[in-house]
């Protein structure tokens, strides 16, 4: 369990955090949404103990030697060493098992190949993220903090990382906090969301509830949408292959039924929710 109570932090450039409180339970994946410069990284650094807050406190109920593991901003790796030696160094310095078997198990846990002997500088960003997570998981922390883990990854890399994060929460009961400014990615894997703006938490709640409460439009993909009579009753923005329909979430079942009765085969219907909507509505 990881809790931050009434955290505040100021720099010479201004206030980075103002009275922020956050809580993550074991096995829960929490998302922290915010624009660049909203205070996500400062909050993460405070939660990990890298930066001392001006006010407030961080509570971690743990007896382990390493309660929190994480990646802040980017995975910090020794680029001149290979993945094996990186794990060996980071495990070695904290007295964690650094034998061949343990290192290989750690690499396999995050889906990294054992046959890569070249320096980490040759790795793709996705592989570096995985190695960063492997290092964060050394010594079995109870909480994992991942700052912008999806940035720079391609869609396959994002999907694969989401699977790994889910697996870690479900199978190892790790409390995970991850940040992003990408609404789509974070809503796919988080149980609970916090929205941060200008150093303050402006919105929070279970992911589904938060999305349902703020959703105002849906993207509907189907052929021949332009000919639909049903859509004329809604505010619609036509795209090349889809239509963005402004409506409440509760209206969606009837809308889909009506489109089907018109003979329009809907292939996808996804909520369109932007970070700006979450921030604006809250403010």
């Amino acid at each position, binding site marked *: 369990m990881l809790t931050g109570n009434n955290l505040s932090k100021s720099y010479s450039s201004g206030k980075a955090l103002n009275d922020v409180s956050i809580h993550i339970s074991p096995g829960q994946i929490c998302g922290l949404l915010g624009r660049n410069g909203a205070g996500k990284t400062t909050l993460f*650094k405070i939660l990990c103990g*890298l930066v001392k807050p001006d006010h407030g406190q961080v509570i971690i109920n743990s007896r382990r*030697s390493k309660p929190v593991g994480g990646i802040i901003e*980017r995975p910090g790796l020794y680029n*001149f*060493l290979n993945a094996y030696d990186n794990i060996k*160094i980071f495990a*070695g*310095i904290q*007295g964690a098992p650094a034998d061949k078997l343990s290192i290989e198990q750690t690499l396999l846990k995050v889906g990294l190949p054992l046959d890569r002997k070249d320096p980490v500088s040759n790795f793709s960003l996705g592989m570096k993220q995985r190695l960063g997570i492997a290092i964060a998981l050394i010594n079995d922390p109870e909480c994992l903090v991942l700052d912008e883990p999806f940035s720079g990854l391609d869609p396959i890399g994002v999907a694969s990382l989401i699977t790994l994060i889910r697996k870690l929460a479900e199978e190892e009961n790790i409390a995970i906090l991850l940040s992003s400014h990408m609404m789509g990615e974070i809503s796919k894997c988080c149980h609970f969301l916090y929205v941060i703006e200008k150093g303050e938490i402006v919105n929070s709640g279970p992911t589904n509830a938060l999305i349902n409460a703020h959703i105002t439009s849906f993207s509907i993909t189907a052929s021949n949408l332009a000919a639909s009579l049903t859509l004329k009753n809604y505010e619609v923005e036509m795209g090349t292959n889809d239509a963005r329909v402004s409506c409440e979430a509760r209206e969606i079942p009837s809308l889909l039924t009506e489109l089907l009765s018109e003979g329009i085969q809907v292939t996808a219907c996804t909520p369109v929710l932007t970070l700006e909507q979450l921030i604006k509505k809250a403010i």
Partner: protein
Amino acid sequence: MRLLLSAELLKLVKQSKTYYALGSIMVIETLILITAYFQGSTILDLLLDNLKQSFYFEGTLLNGNLIMYIVLNSLWFNVPLILMIVTSGIVTDEYKDGTMQTVMLQAVKKWKFITAKYIIAVLFTILVIGFMMLTTFILAYSIFGGGDLVVYLNTLNFFEADDAFHRICWAFASGAVSMVFYCVVSLTLAIFIKEAAKTWIAAALFLIITTLLLKVDFVIPVINSFFFPKLIDTWQQLFYYELDWTQILMNNALLILYTIAFAAAGTYVFHKKDIG
């Protein structure tokens, strides 16, 4: 601490800059040897022509001991500058690559981590000076052989071959203490500054100012005797005709105390500072 030291050692061994440092020392030595081989005799003959008419010198004056003494003089600026750049990288590279954060996110105590870095920097410095002494000895003696040493320190001092060799060896040892001081200072600067290029500038400035202050008369005897810029050339005292071992040992002991003080200040600041 043992685990941290072995990790730091592994990093040092695997980094190419370690070998660049050793390579640059070899380049300096080679240049001195080539210059001495082709021009040394002419210069020495010109300088000592009159003296040779009055005194007998055993062997040629352009010998291994003189070459070792010339290489030793690179401890004034070239070698400390190289060492300060390399050892400050032990800390600045960690900041640049983000590994400082990664390490601090592990179950590692801050003071232990930075102390391990200081210890490795000291060991690396001693290794480099040892390497420099050994390679110079092998190259200079195999090319030029042994012989008496002539040194100009206020006046011309002459030492017999065996005496000269012993003095050179002790001078390297004393010089190593000065180099360790510079390296510890550069590591402390790196902790304060964090950025590599700025740290290099600060380290070079420190080196220049220290060398300038060495020549300044502070009037107050205590400062003239105990201020650290006045101690960094102790290795030169091994080439005065009359050796004052008490002074040499005291100066080195004081410089070691200054070194410990700089390391303690760096460790304290690192422990108190936020990471990132």
